[in-house]
């Protein structure tokens, strides 16, 4: 992104660009989503700056409330009458009396409130934020089922969040740290910064990275934790396979780590954790031929990689916003590998699954019952 482009962009934002410059800028914006993200940032800053105090159109809450009060007829005497009339029609006398008493109290308090508000405005104010340039408070972003979101973080990292996921951005993210907490699935394009490690904490494992592209799948309802690296290298830390001490696995490009938590269908039945080393079946690191397919969901691809049936139905539930009940415990043994591109409804997926797995299904509204069949 060179300076000339940026200057034209600023001209465009501030309303000084002529027609040909506008066209140039719009072409440039269409070229690359990075340009678009930058534009949005600057546009936001431009808009926010309008509210700067002297010289700007400062927000005057007092004035605004005064105007609204008038409009709604919230002047003391009027409200006392109309409010009471309404209340007495609807409520018991008892409640009516409460409102009346409250109103007299309120009349006295409003005077105090306005005064307090004035004091706050001129008094000193403690900044709630941490370091300069970092977020003053934690934020959580949630994605509902059937949906997905793309987020640009303060450090220029891009995160895609899959259906039914949430990402908590910790306080101080930006200048103080680069810590987030993930429940669900996220595809991370981490902005390179060797001074600050980007850390994704999940329920069981922590992923650390400096500047890399990777996908993490860590839904609590699933039986598998999965991390796939598209570019660069990450480290995954935690207690693997029931080991007492935490250890670390380094994943490099095109490698995928799978940790299977349970092998049974119903949560009640669990195989006892056994001592297994990293290379055995519960925890596996493998090179994947099509590593990008692990992030395919952000392009509406549906992909199963030796997933067990519980995880498969979980994925379908989140993606298509349905409820799936598995009637036959035997189905827990089924595993499936395959990829689907942009299939709009869940029945189409199930029809394909039916061809190679012994299932049959029935749909009633938003609930699907799956049975085994001989």
């Amino acid at each position, binding site marked *: 992104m060179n300076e000339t482009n940026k*200057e034209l*962009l*600023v*001209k*465009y934002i501030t309303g000084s660009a002529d027609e040909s410059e506008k066209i140039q800028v*719009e072409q440039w*914006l269409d070229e690359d989503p990075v340009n*678009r993200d930058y*534009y*949005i*940032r600057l546009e936001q*800053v*431009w*808009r*926010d*700056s*309008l*509210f*700067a*105090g002297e*010289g*700007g*159109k400062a*927000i005057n*809450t007092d004035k*605004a*409330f005064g*105007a*609204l009060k008038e*409009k*709604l007829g*919230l002047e003391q005497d009027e409200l006392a009458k109309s*409010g009471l009339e*309404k*209340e007495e029609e*609807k409520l018991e006398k008892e409640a009516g009396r409460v*409102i009346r008493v409250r*109103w007299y*109290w*309120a009349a006295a308090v*409003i005077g105090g*409130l306005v005064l307090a508000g004035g004091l*706050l*405005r001129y008094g000193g*104010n403690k900044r*709630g934020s941490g370091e300069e340039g*970092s977020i*003053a*408070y*934690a*934020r*959580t*972003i949630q994605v509902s089922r059937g949906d997905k*979101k*793309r*987020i*640009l*973080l*303060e450090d220029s990292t891009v995160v895609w969040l899959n259906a039914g996921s949430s990402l908590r951005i910790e306080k101080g993210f*930006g200048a103080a740290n680069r810590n987030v907490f993930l429940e669900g699935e996220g595809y991370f394009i981490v902005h390179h910064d060797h001074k600050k490690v980007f850390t994704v904490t999940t329920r069981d494992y922590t992923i650390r990275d400096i500047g890399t592209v990777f996908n993490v799948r860590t839904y609590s309802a699933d039986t598998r934790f999965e991390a796939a690296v598209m570019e660069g290298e990450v480290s995954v830390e935690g207690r693997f396979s029931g080991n007492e001490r935490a250890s670390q696995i380094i994943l490099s490009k095109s490698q995928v780590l799978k940790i299977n938590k349970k092998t049974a269908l119903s949560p009640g039945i669990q195989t006892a954790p056994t001592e297994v080393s990293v290379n055995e079946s519960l925890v596996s690191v493998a090179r994947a031929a099509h590593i990008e397919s692990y992030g395919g969901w952000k392009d509406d691809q549906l992909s199963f990689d030796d997933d067990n049936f519980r995880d498969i139905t979980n994925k379908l539930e989140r993606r298509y916003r349905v409820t799936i009940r598995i009637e036959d415990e035997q189905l827990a043994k089924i595993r499936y590998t395959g990829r689907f591109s942009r299939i709009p409804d869940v029945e189409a997926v199930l029809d394909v699954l039916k061809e190679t797995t012994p299932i049959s299904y029935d749909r009633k509204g938003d609930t699907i019952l799956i049975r085994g069949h001989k």
Partner: protein
Amino acid sequence: MEYSDKEAAEGLKAGDTVVFEWLFRKYYAQLCLYANRFLAGPQNAEEIVSETFAVLWEKKDRIQFSHSVRGYLFGTVHHKCINALEHLKVRNRYEEWLITSARQSGQDEIPEQDLIEKEMTRDIEKAIEDLPEKCRQIFKLSRFEQKKYHEIAAILQLSPKTVETQMRIALEKLRQSLRHLLTLFIW
């Protein structure tokens, strides 16, 4: 005096004007800042937010708050802003993308903690005052007096190229120093 969300909802339903005023003073400014991200001018933002409060008061006995009063306020403002945008005759790219993202995703993200309006506007003011002198003068003429580049060049006796460069520097510096205030638009 602080009201929990439950107390605020109950107070509203009961027609308690103290609660209503408390809600207004607590959320008005941040809702305006939020709305201003969608709409081009502060007046529009303030109108929409005032309307939202007016409706809140008028329908107070009928509203069911599915999340919280705060969620209702932000959600309503969001909805009204998108409507206003959709009725705009001329829209720039930013506004088009806002509409598209609003159609694709559900509720916009709402910060967990309340932005404190006084801090926010003070931060913005300070960031502007911290700009280098020439840069700041140019920025203020553009932002607060709506001057076009060639007008600024004439007023300050500078070349148009200088104005272009300084404006770029201004926005870049402001973006850096106000990074912590940018709630994200999610696409």
